[in-house]
């Protein structure tokens, strides 16, 4: 009787020991992983959401295009009936084009900026996201050389454009983008080309950071319009006559 009890005790204690070991390994594994299964789940969830938002994005864009087309038709018919309306409309169109709400075309440059593959694989520290100041410098250089309209990956540079680093990519006008970058710029292509290529200028600096820069002159560069309209909350005109 006593002998059997002893055997049970041994088996029991071994089981308990095993149980402890098992729970320990489970615990350590889950603690080293953090929320181990959560991340992949979360990513999937984000991917689904992203797809949804992208669909919505497409839908909104087409709807906006249609609306703008209709607006144009109405505006044109109204302008045809009334000379004053017509002149106002022309003014509005002019200011819109100055402010960047119209797609423009003309002589200019197309600047391609790419990162070499090997560098991308090395990882952080060398991407354009770490060198957003170079983009600012490029814009400034082009403007100083008389650029009339600039876009980077079809994101129009307006007087409100901000370029920001967000993780491994760049945000321009609040929209994410990354290399390869295509900068389209309208203006005097010779002046702009010289300004970019001046010794120790922006092209040299980009190359110093291992970017490939390729500049081509074109007669018909297309610069897309800005797709966000700006409203003012804080600024008011000083002149009292203007209300």
């Amino acid at each position: 009787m006593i002998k059997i009890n002893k055997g049970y005790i041994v088996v029991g204690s071994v089981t308990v020991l095993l149980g402890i070991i098992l729970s320990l390994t489970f615990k350590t594994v889950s603690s080293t992983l953090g929320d181990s299964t959560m991340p992949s789940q979360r990513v999937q969830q984000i991917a689904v959401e992203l797809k949804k938002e992208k669909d919505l994005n497409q839908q909104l864009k087409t709807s906006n295009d249609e609306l703008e087309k209709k607006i144009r038709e109405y505006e044109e018919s109204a302008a045809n009936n009334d000379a004053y309306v017509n002149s106002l409309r022309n003014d509005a169109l002019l200011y819109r084009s100055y402010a960047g709400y119209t797609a423009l075309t003309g002589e200019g440059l197309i600047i391609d900026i790419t990162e070499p593959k090997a560098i991308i694989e090395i990882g952080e520290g060398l991407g354009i996201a770490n060198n957003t100041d170079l983009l600012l410098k490029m814009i400034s250089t082009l403007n100083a050389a008389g650029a009339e309209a600039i876009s980077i990956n079809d994101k129009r540079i307006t007087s409100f454009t901000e370029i920001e680093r967000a993780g491994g990519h760049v945000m321009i006008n609040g929209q994410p983008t990354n290399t390869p970058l295509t900068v389209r710029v309208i203006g005097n292509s010779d002046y702009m080309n010289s300004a970019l290529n001046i010794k120790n200028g922006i092209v040299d600096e980009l190359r110093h950071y291992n970017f490939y820069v390729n500049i081509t002159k074109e007669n018909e560069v297309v610069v897309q319009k800005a797709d966000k309209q700006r409203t003012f909350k804080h600024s008011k005109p000083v002149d009292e006559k203007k209300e």
Partner: protein
Amino acid sequence: MNKIIKKTTLLLLAGFVSFSTVMQIKSKPEKYTHVTFETIKNAVNELGAIKQENQALLDMENLNKARLEQLIEASKKGSDNLIKNYKAEIEERKIELGYYDVKGPGIIIKMYDNDIIRPDWYDVNFDVVHDGDIQIIINDLRLAGAEAISVNDERLTSKSGIQCGGPTIWVNDVAMATPFYIKAIGDPNKLYASVTAPNTYGDSLKEIVGLEASVVDEITIKAYSGDRNFKYAKPIKEDS
């Protein structure tokens, strides 16, 4: 017989337990974390960005709808409303383009060269305000929602270049030198934070050259006096 069954059960159970223990130990944590934190962060960023863009598009859609409605109404009732709308739009574009002096709450930033006396071998480039510094500060201000910005009373537009040229910096083709006063209208707290908060460029720049920012209840920013005409660019006909 009974004993044999008991023992086999025990053996099987022990085998199962040891098997699962080995599996647990062998399983590599990395196997499940194909997704790094960075990937998630990027995905979240992208999602946030597209949401923002969609919001902007939605605003645009509402704006367009309202405009279309006004146009339809105008086509029925005559063009008075239409004229009013065009005038309002032209005014807004003119404010945006810097045709008028504008006033509002904002900040003034003073940036100046460091006048510490240095030994001969010292590279004085470190003591000087550069065009790049101003470009980045202005980018940060725009990020914080600045509505109008000027550098030494030269209003910045989308076509403003800020470039070093010898001892001076050229803004809008006007030469200026230290000290530089940058004025910006917008939400003053946001603007102030964008150049003084820890880890901002302005904050780190303060260690090298002079930079002082102050919030102002009302500042006036001068109009842009230069030329805006296009010589090269033409609008694309959007008829299709």
